[in-house]
């Protein structure tokens, strides 16, 4: 329906069927300067050092990888580590052993708060030194109270233990009912048959919901690319364990899967100078942890009321 009042006036310099040269030049200038501004605003991406290549981008979920694909992925990870650190690691995909469920028991009467476990863990598990990521947090509590609101995290005396205090190391409690697994939107973290909750670092999207959900502050995030001195790199690695992580993913204590799934103790157990840390297979009635849980009159699970049912027990010499 032509509308007489809206048709262009005959003297209108703009031809009705196209753009005038001036308006074409003007809109080109706008488009070009817009693109230039866009490019300038994206310039920080030149310093991007952790952009996935096609293989990394398309890598399948851990549980969907065939053994052949897994072998390719493991080799690729070894190549990546070698390229970055100049050392060739041995990366394995270790599966849970049959008839094994790991349990941890920690003797609060014995712990002296020396934090040797914290540092042994960092060294064993290739944790970032700057920024610092630690899986174990040892807190100092006043005599007689388990109220974590009273916990001192940064205690730093000349000598431990101190009078009037006791020490409680906290790490992943390997819950039977883990809130972190429940909340993960992409199944990037799950509980394995031996009770260890693991993370597929190549699948995690870094939403940090698990970090909010964990009642034990056991999950830690790589806020930037982790940095590990080359000479400190532990070359004995596992896919679900201590292989170097990438920027933007979660990590946590995994009971040293690279050790425990081949029959060794976790690093924290080995290093403890007072024998406060006990680790073993609860399904084996002869194991040390089975003996402890059978014979100790009092042992506790941290925040038992939350129903997370930890596989980590604190006990006392009574």
């Amino acid at each position, binding site marked *: *329906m*032509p*509308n*007489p*009042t*809206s*048709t262009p006036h005959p003297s209108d310099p703009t031809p009705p069927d196209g753009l005038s040269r001036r308006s074409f030049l003007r809109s080109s200038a706008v488009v070009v300067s*817009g693109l230039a*501004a866009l490019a*300038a*605003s*994206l*310039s*920080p*991406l030149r*310093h*991007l050092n952790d*952009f996935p290549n096609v293989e990394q*981008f398309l890598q399948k*979920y851990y549980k969907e990888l065939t053994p052949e694909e897994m072998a390719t992925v493991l080799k690729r990870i070894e190549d990546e580590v070698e390229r970055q650190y100049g050392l060739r690691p041995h990366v394995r995909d270790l599966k849970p052993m049959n008839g094994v469920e790991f349990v941890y028991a920690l003797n609060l009467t014995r712990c002296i708060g020396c934090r040797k476990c914290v540092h042994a863990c960092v060294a064993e598990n290739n944790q970032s030194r700057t*920024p610092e990521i630690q899986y174990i947090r040892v*807190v100092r509590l006043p005599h007689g109270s388990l*109220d*974590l*609101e*009273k916990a001192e*995290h940064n205690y730093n005396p000349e000598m431990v233990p101190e009078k009037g205090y006791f020490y409680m190391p906290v790490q992943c409690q390997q819950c039977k009912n883990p*809130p972190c697994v*429940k*909340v993960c*939107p*992409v*199944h990037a973290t799950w509980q394995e048959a031996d009770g260890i909750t693991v993370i597929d670092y190549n*699948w*995690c*999207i*870094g*939403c*940090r*919901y698990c*970090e*909010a*959900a*964990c*009642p*034990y*502050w056991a999950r*830690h*995030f*790589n*806020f*930037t*690319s982790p940095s590990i001195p080359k000479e400190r790199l532990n070359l004995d690695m596992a896919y679900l364990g201590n292989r170097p992580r990438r*920027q*933007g*993913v*979660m990590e946590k204590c995994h009971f040293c899967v690279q050790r425990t799934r081949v029959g060794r103790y976790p690093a924290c157990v080995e290093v403890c100078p007072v024998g406060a840390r006990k680790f073993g297979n609860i399904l084996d009635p002869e194991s040390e942890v089975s003996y402890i849980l059978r014979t100790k009159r009092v042992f506790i699970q941290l*925040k038992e009321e*939350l*129903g997370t049912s930890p596989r980590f027990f604190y006990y006392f010499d009574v």
Partner: protein
Amino acid sequence: MRQAVRNYLVFLWRCGRLAFVGDWRYYTWMGVLSVFCLLGLNAYARQFANGLIVTGMSDQVSWGVYIANFTFLVGVAAAAVMMVIPVYIYKNEELHELVIFGELLAVAAILMCLAFVTVDLGRPDRFWHLIPGIGQFNFPASMLSWDVLVLNGYLLLNVHICGYLLYCRYRGRTPAKWFYIPFVFIAIVWAVSIHTVTAFLYVGLGGRPFWNSAIVGPRFLASAFTAGPALIILAMQVVRRVTASAPANDTSLSRGELGTVQRPKSRAAASSDLDLLARHLPELASVPKEARQSILAGATVLEANAGDVLLRQGNTEQRAFFVLKGRVVVKREEGGRFRITRSLGPGEQFGEISALAGTPRTGSAVAEEPALILSLPVDSLRKLMTVPGLKKIIRSRMSERLLITDRALMTLRSIVQVSMLINVFLLANEVFKEFYSGNLHVASSKYLFLGLHGHHALVPWIWTAIGFNLVAMVLLVLPVSRSLKWLNVTCVLCIVGIWIEKGMGLVIPGFIPTPLGELVEYSPSLNETLVCFGIWAFGLLCYTIFLRMAVPILQGRLSKANEAQPEFGVSGVGPQPAVQP
């Protein structure tokens, strides 16, 4: 089929072109927003390269203002239903115009929500792990997977509803009820669900006693229904201001010069005039001869010249009008200015609402060009509405008017009022439970409201929020907020107060102290703040573009009928139509 696709593409093309034209105010506004978008993009590029270390977040406080903004905006999106419910369930006609604006706001808010969660991800390159069927979707266990579904679903619902209604309006068709009403009702339930699910993200965490409270869900809804409509009240006044065309001293319309205005010539209507109308309203052709005679009783045809006033705002005369030929604009006087509310072509009607209701005219109609207008007494209109098919058309057109009335804003005000009262009440409940029982879990609340062990970064924030909310509540209860000036102040207080209460006052303290009792504070970094500003600018940019397209369609100035004409806005005139002498 190909024709339908072509029509739709032309529609999108014409809408898209509109986004790039406007007056200097429009260009300035869009330019400023674009600059903020680019600053935000630049900040995000820095974060993408270096990781979230450039934010103020830490392992202790692992969510910050990104998730705080996300939470707030989910509420804004959910609040769109507060326009929809009165219209579709209680048949409130005043709010009808606002439904589309509310839903467009919901769309913009959801886009911002999606942007905020994306920038919060450590590995945004792995977003595809979240796509159901392609990635690994932990549904229904993870509340975050619910959120992915409900937010994207809500986005699609709203895009469908507004897109469909606007396209129908553009085509001059009556929307098919079955194609949108069911979605409207789904969207109502859905809106409640998006905010409940977002609340459950927090409520479901047993290890965070500050969040692990059943009242968080209702609190989220109450605060959303306060802040959302408050935002719409402000946005609608901006729309009203921007679409205002001529100052009220427009000589042809001012009341003082009533006498000098030319009245159009009129003659008695004949059956041939109904034939003319039937060309545009085919349903009319089936009307038998006797019925035509009774419809034509008392009917006249006005032969108007450009500029003739056909009906005048404030008058009461029970006549309705149909355009037979030419174009007519309807203008409303508001706050001393005239705003074009509609532009009508052949076959379209005006004046029928006040004719049927016997109320004063809500606007004045002026012939834009030489026009033929059929003027019917209200009895004839009622007879016309007994014709099968016509009643539906007339009624549906009645409800498609772009009228942002003060009464509609006042309806929104009562929603804000009630919601704010409930919100403050629920907050008081939470505070009582936390402090009176005095158990060990009060640490986060103590930190928030009073400070804990010498740490009190959030104390000024929360008391500002409480102060704003209380002042807003008092203003809302007092009659003073019936004046738009005070209502606007109140709305700003509501929005800021609730933004703080839900963001800095709910998301952040949940992390302080940590589950192991460590006290680490949080404040957003500059980079993080720039990203937030960028996303807000992006959202406002989207909303502006949506309105830029929707307003002319609702006014009838952008329609299939005028497809062949040069775009009204493209000549650089801005939001006003190019009315030529």
